[in-house]
């Protein structure tokens, strides 16, 4: 019910944006931002299952159903993204789609940045993600039915395929959907930067889901040790994100080439609050709050930090998209942005809980289920 109400708020925000006569750039950019953000959460939910399956680790088995359910959102988000692109969003978001705007730099990029190839890539990404997500979920359920090792090996095979596929597609999709908004500018680190942002948010949202499920009385088998490991992920990946952020920023700052610095110049001049807030919320706070060992083991630290990371990386994405797609005159955070995000959260919750209802929350027959119950970590 809460999910439906939140979706209604989102639709209301959309209608409000339309009636209030906000720039259509802003509306499209917000839809684009949120669909990308929540698709990436789905991708990381699946990545969580896949990467641990390859590593043959045991502890994550206790909460891998949540990751699988999060991946149910990939096709839903993809559909919204497709509607945004086909209903005229391409022209509003991407400068390179205007053939009369092409200067000598963009002309050279036409062989990559053209609409037919863009949509070919779009469908390749989503076909691969949806197919592999479906295969991994199916195999995981078959494994749960009879615990046959054959399915366990098959799960590892699909997981390996998915991790390799995501390694390439997460980078290329971030060029397509985010970096090409500022088509004149480029950074070779960008794909990794976006991926690290996706990674830390995805894991934080997974913890939030586990917390909500436990409050609802499910998943009692998840204990402090599992939360501790998720806390370590959030702590470490926040540092990893900051490392990539700084690597990109410092090289551009030091080299001081006008065509590169223009990117940060715009953000520092017109989006300075969000620019600095981004660093504080996504690096400084998680770094300091999650540093003590005991902080990673208790929900009342882990969950606020997870929510903080969730909001922080939304802001991160905001400052990646808005300066290029909307411009500083029209961009802002108002009812449209907040309402629409609430709507997407609602939709994401609905899809994920629907996904959770399709399979038992406890993967009892997984070969590592027993091991995950006895999992023990000291530091």
């Amino acid at each position, binding site marked *: 019910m809460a999910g439906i109400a939140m979706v209604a708020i989102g639709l209301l925000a959309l209608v409000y944006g339309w009636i209030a006569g906000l720039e259509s750039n802003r509306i499209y950019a917000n839809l684009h931002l949120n669909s990308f953000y929540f698709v990436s959460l789905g991708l990381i939910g699946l990545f969580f299952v896949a990467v641990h399956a390859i590593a043959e680790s045991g502890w994550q088995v206790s909460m891998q159903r949540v990751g699988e359910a999060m991946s149910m959102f990939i096709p839903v988000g993809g559909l919204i993204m497709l509607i945004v692109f086909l209903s005229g969003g391409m022209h509003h978001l991407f400068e390179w789609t205007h053939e009369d705007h092409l200067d000598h730099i963009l002309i050279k990029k036409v062989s990559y940045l053209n609409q037919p190839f863009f949509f070919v890539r779009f469908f390749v990404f989503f076909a691969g993600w949806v197919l592999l997500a479906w295969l991994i979920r199916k195999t995981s359920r078959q494994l749960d039915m009879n615990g046959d090792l054959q399915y366990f090996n098959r799960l590892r095979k699909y997981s390996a395929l998915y991790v390799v596929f995501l390694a390439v597609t997460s980078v290329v999709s971030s060029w397509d959907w985010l970096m090409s908004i500022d088509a004149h500018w480029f950074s070779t680190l960008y794909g990794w930067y976006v991926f690290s942002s996706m990674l830390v948010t995805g894991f934080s949202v997974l913890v939030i889901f586990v917390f909500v499920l436990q409050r609802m009385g499910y998943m009692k088998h998840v204990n402090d040790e599992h939360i501790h490991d998720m806390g370590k992920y959030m702590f470490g990946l926040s540092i990893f994100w900051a490392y990539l952020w700084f690597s990109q920023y*410092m090289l551009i*700052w*030091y080299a*001081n080439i006008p065509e590169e610095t223009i990117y940060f110049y715009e953000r520092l001049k017109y989006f300075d609050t969000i620019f600095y807030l981004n660093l504080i919320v996504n690096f400084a706070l998680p770094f300091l709050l999650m540093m003590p*060992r005991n902080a990673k083991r208790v929900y009342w630290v882990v969950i606020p930090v997870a929510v903080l990371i969730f909001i922080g990386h939304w802001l991160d994405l905001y400052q990646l998209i808005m300066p290029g797609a909307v411009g500083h005159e029209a961009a802002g955070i108002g009812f449209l942005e907040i309402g629409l995000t609430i709507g997407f959260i609602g939709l994401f919750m609905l899809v994920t809980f629907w996904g959770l209802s399709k399979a038992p929350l406890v993967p009892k027959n997984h070969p590592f289920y027993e091991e995950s119950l006895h999992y*023990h970590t*000291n530091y």
Partner: protein
Amino acid sequence: MNKDYITAYYYDEDVLLKAVRQLKEKGLEVLDVLTPFPVHGLDKALGMRRSRLTRVAFWGGAIGAAVGFLFQAWVFTKGYPLNFGGKPFFAVPSFMPVTFELAVLFAAFSMVFAFLIYFKLGPGAKTVIHDERITDDRFLVVIGVRKEGNQQEIEQALKETGAEGITHNV
């Protein structure tokens, strides 16, 4: 160790873990357990507190970061200002790599030296090797002898739990 003690070894980690619990139950003073690899649950069985080395690391790192940052800030603005490609003298982004490295260096060194000093180890330290096989396949327990002399009781308890090679160091 200025105390009288008795050592004995076990062949198996599970036997050791059970034995340590039993010895503690009997009220014997288990001074130390020496194992060739980490044994899960042994910290808890021995009732050890969590290491405070992490705090040393934090403060070492914090001092290192402060030293790195402030020293650069002083050098590049007061001590020896140089113009690098038109950058401001107080250029925070370019200070970050050195600040980070010094934080790591100070954290690591402070941990190593805190460890060596606290356990009186390091070059020239006198160490007691109870049994050379603890680096291979033996699990050794060290049990303190009370002033009134309870060697009999200790030996009895050790034999009950399956220990071998009981050695007195009185």
